[in-house]
C-alpha cells in the first residue's frame, strides 16, 4: 500500500464525491438556469443523429451494467457460472462499449467540423467529451485484454467500491490491478468530480416524472380561493413557479 495508491483510490474518490454532491446541489439551487441538456440539434441535426443516439444507448447500457455489478455482484457471478452466459454478457457489454465509441467519435468530429456547433461548444464540453472518450477506450481495452471483466469486477472491484461507501476503504484488491484498469478507475472518479461543472448535469434531471404527471398543467400564482377569502391570511411564501 504505497502513497499514490492511497491517494488515487482513497483520497480521490472521497474528494470527487464531495465535489460531485456539493457542486450539483449548488448548481441546481443557485444556478438553476444553467441546468440544461444544451441540445444543439436546432443548429445541426443530421450528424447529431448518428452520434447522439448510439452514444446515449451505449452509455446507458454500460452504465447500468456497471451499476448492476456494483449492486448485486453475487448475481453477476452466478450468471457468469455458465461459460456461454459469461460470453454472451461480455460480448453484449463490449458491443455497447463500441457503440459509445462510435457515437462519441461522431459527436467530437461534429463539434470540430460544424461552424455553428463550434459556436456553442465550451471548454468544458470538450474536456468532458475527451474524458469520456478516454474512459471508453480504456474500458474497451480492459475488457479486451483482461478477461473476464464482469467476473473480476464483481469479485474484486465491487467489494472495494462498497468499502468506500462503508467508510472502511480497503484497497488491497485495486492496488495490484494492471495500469489500464487503474486509469479507468481513476478517470471515473475524475469524471464524477467535473460532473457538476459540465452539461452532464442533465442526466440528473432526466424527465422520468413526465410519465406520471397529467398532460396539462395549470398553476395558480397564488392560492386562488384562499387569496379571496378574508378569513385566511396572505400566503406566507411565494408560489413555487418562478
Amino acid at each position: 500500500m504505497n502513497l499514490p495508491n492511497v491517494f488515487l483510490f482513497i483520497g480521490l474518490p472521497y474528494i470527487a464525491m464531495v465535489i460531485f454532491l456539493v457542486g450539483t446541489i449548488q448548481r441546481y439551487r443557485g444556478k438553476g438556469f444553467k441546468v440544461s441538456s444544451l441540445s444543439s440539434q436546432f443548429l445541426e441535426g443530421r450528424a447529431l443523429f448518428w452520434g447522439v443516439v448510439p452514444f446515449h444507448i451505449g452509455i446507458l447500457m454500460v452504465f447500468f451494467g456497471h451499476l448492476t455489478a456494483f449492486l448485486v455482484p453475487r448475481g453477476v457471478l452466478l450468471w457468469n457460472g455458465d461459460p456461454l452466459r459469461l460470453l454472451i454478457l461480455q460480448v453484449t457489454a463490449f458491443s455497447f462499449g463500441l457503440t459509445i465509441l462510435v457515437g462519441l467519435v461522431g459527436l467530437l468530429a461534429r463539434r470540430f467540423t460544424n461552424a455553428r456547433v463550434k459556436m456553442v461548444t465550451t471548454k468544458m464540453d470538450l474536456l468532458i467529451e475527451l474524458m469520456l472518450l478516454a474512459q471508453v477506450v480504456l474500458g474497451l481495452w480492459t475488457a479486451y485484454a483482461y478477461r473476464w471483466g464482469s467476473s473480476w469486477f464483481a469479485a474484486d472491484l465491487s467489494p472495494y467500491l462498497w468499502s468506500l461507501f462503508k467508510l472502511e476503504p480497503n484497497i488491497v484488491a485495486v492496488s495490484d490491478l494492471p495500469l489500464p484498469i487503474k486509469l479507468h478507475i481513476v478517470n471515473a472518479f475524475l469524471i464524477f468530480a467535473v460532473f457538476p461543472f459540465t452539461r452532464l448535469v442533465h442526466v440528473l434531471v432526466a424527465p422520468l416524472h413526465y410519465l406520471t404527471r397529467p398532460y396539462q398543467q395549470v398553476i395558480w400564482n397564488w392560492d386562488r380561493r384562499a387569496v379571496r377569502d378574508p378569513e385566511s391570511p396572505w400566503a406566507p411564501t411565494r408560489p413555487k413557479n418562478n
Partner: protein
Amino acid sequence: MDIRAQISMIFHLDKCIGCHTCSVACKNIWTDRKGAEYMWWNNVETKPGTGYPQKWENQSIYKGGWERDEVGRIHLRGAGKKRGLMNIFHNPALPSIDDYYEPFTYRYLNLIEAPAGDDQPTARPVSLITGEPMDIKMGPNWDDDLGGSPDYARNDPNLEGMTPAERDAMFQLERMAFFYLPRICNHCLNPACVASCPSGAIYKRGEDGVVLINQNVCRAWRMCVTACPYKKSYYNWHTGKSEKCILCYPRMEAGYAPACMHSCVGRIRYIGVILYDADRIEAAASADQKDLVRAQTDILMDPFDEEVIASARKNGVPDSTIKAAQQSPAYKFIKVWKMALPLHPEFRTLPMLWYVPPLLPVMASVKEGDARQKDKLNPMAKTWADDWLYDTSTEELWGTVEQARFPLKYLASLFSAGDTGAVADRLKKLMAVRIYRRWKTAHDVPEAKMRQALNDTGLTEDSAEAIYYLTALAKFNDRFVIPPAHREQAMEMLEFTGDVKGSTGFGFREHPERGL
C-alpha cells in the same frame, strides 16, 4: 362547471395593413438577445404564403398539435409521453434554424474603418451565429406581399385541398389578392406545448390563461417546439432553453396592453377576458372535425349567466375580471356576433386568439362593362351604379370560383377546418354591416335591401351599429378591456421592464449565461 378566466385577443384582419409594427415592438422588448435573434414571438405573414417557419401549417412535416384517433380520443402528433421520451436524444420532427432563417447583421463598421482603396467600402452581411460572412438566403418576411410567389405563395399548405384550376385562378395577375396574418402564441386552452414538455416547465397560468415557460425548469428537451402546431415555441440555441410569447404579462399586470396590441397601427387588435368551462375542454378538443368551430365556441360561457358567475366566483375569479368579461370585445366578436374564428381549429389546441376573416380580398372583382357578369348578379349588386367594382350582394356573394378573387375554401382551410359555411357566415356579416352603414350615411342603398342584408345575417340595426362602432371607431379603452392589476395575483408588478432587459425573461434575475 369549472369556470376560469382567459385573456383572449381578436385580430380584425380587414384592418391589418401589414406594417410589422407589432413584430418590431415585440422584438425590441423581448427578443433582441443572443440566441433569440431569429425568434419573432409576433410575426406577420402574407397569405397565401409559406409563413415563418417555412410551411409551419404542414403537420406532415412538423408533427405539431393533436390528432384524433378512431375512438375519438386525441393524442399529440409528434410528442407525448411515449414518443417524446423515445425521441429525447434526437427529435426527428424538430425544425432546424434553417427552417426559420439564419440571423444576420452587417459589418457596418467597415464603412467607416475600411482603409482607403479603389473600391467603395461595403457592409458585408455576417451570420449572427458564427460571425462569418454569409449570403442571406431567407429572412422572417421573405415572402412579404407575395414576393417570390412561385417559391412561397404557391407552396402554401392551405392550397392542398384545392384543384389546380382553383389554384391557378388565385395567381392570375388580375385577380391576385392577399391579406396579412399577424400571429403570436395562441395561449391555447388545450396547449400542446404544455402537454409535450417532459420537464413540466411549461404551464398555463390559472389567473389569466397565459402560457409560460419556466426558464429555470426548461432542460432543452425541445419537445414543445415540435408539439406547438403554430411553431410559437422557440428554442434559444445560445442559452439552451425554449422561449415563447408571454403575452407581455408584466405589462398586463401593470395595466398596460401587450406591446404588439399597443403599437398596432391599424388598430386591428382587441383584447378582453373570456370565461370558459374547463370541464369541457377535453370534449371540445376531441370534437368531430366538422363540429370543431362550434365546439370550441361553445365552451366560452355567457358572462351574464348567474350560474357562470357563481362558478367563477367559487374559483376565485375576482369581480373586476367578471366585469371585464361582460364588457369584453373578444366575447362580442366570438359569441355575440359570431364574427371571429380560431386559427386552424383542426390542430385541436383550442387557440384563444381569434380572427375576423378578411372580407376585402374575398370580394369578387368584376370587370367594368362585362355584361355577362352583370346578368349574374342580383339587383342589389347594382346599387353602386352601373360601373360597379364589387359584387356586394348577400345572396350570391361569392358566386363561382371564377368570380371570387379569393376562394372561400382557402379561408376555410385557415380558420374553420374546411367549413366554408362558417367563413361565409362571418364574411356576410361584415358585408351586411357595410351595407347598413352605406344605407345610413350615403343613402344609396334602399332600406328594403339593407333590411334583407341584416335579416339574412341575423343582425339587427343595433348590433350592426355596435359592430361598426367597435370596428371603425373604437377607442383604446374599448379595444383593451383588461381588469386593473390585482396586486395579490401579480408576479412582476413591482419591476421595471428596463431593469431586466437583455435578461432571459421577466421574474428571472440571472443573466442568461449559457451553461458550462
